[in-house]
């Protein structure tokens, strides 16, 4: 029987971005894992799904009161 857990990689975990992407890990982000036969496995995902999981919500804590989309649209108007 598998057990799903969530782990958090330390902020200074020494992996380059490309390897983090390949492994599905990124510093400070929680990832779903599965314990199976004494080892830890990530849920099977494609590269697109791993990248999407990391990308989604990745900057929600930055400037939380700013509407990023509204700012983008305003800039497009000003730049014509």
């Amino acid at each position: 029987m598998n057990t799903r857990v969530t782990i958090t990689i330390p902020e200074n975990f020494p992996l380059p971005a490309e390897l983090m992407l390949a492994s599905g890990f990124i510093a400070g982000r929680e990832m779903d894992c599965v314990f199976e036969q004494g080892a830890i496995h990530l849920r099977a995902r494609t590269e697109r799904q791993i990248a999407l999981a990391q990308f989604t919500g990745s900057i929600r804590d930055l400037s939380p009161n700013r509407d990023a989309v509204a700012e983008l649209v305003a800039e497009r108007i000003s730049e014509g």
Partner: protein
Amino acid sequence: MRLLLDTSALLVLCRAEAGFETLRDTVSDLNHEIFIASISLAELGRRVRELGADESVVNTLLGYCKSIATTVVIDGAIAELSLRLAKHATARIPLADSLIAACAVSMHATLIHRDKHFESMQSSVLPQLTLPLHSRL
């Protein structure tokens, strides 16, 4: 289905703004082909930087974008197509929007966005899905 994500849709995803769950599930569905316009990489990078992200975060996020979607390069043909699309829009459309719309049309893709400017383009010319406004989670 072929889908092209506007920069506003990318921001909805990475900011977890209204509508992001449905969009995330759609993009995660491997039955769909996902595209972005090359100009969106610059727009997203600038916006994320202005929100306070450092360069390593910006670069990592752009890397994710390129893993999530196929980048459509804006060449001369797409630039000319954007000119024609802008001419037939019912209201003035910013340059970046017209280029992104042209990328979607050239790839025969439905544009996903949260930008009212695209509403000036007929859906028969530019198939599009509009994400809900506001109410950040």
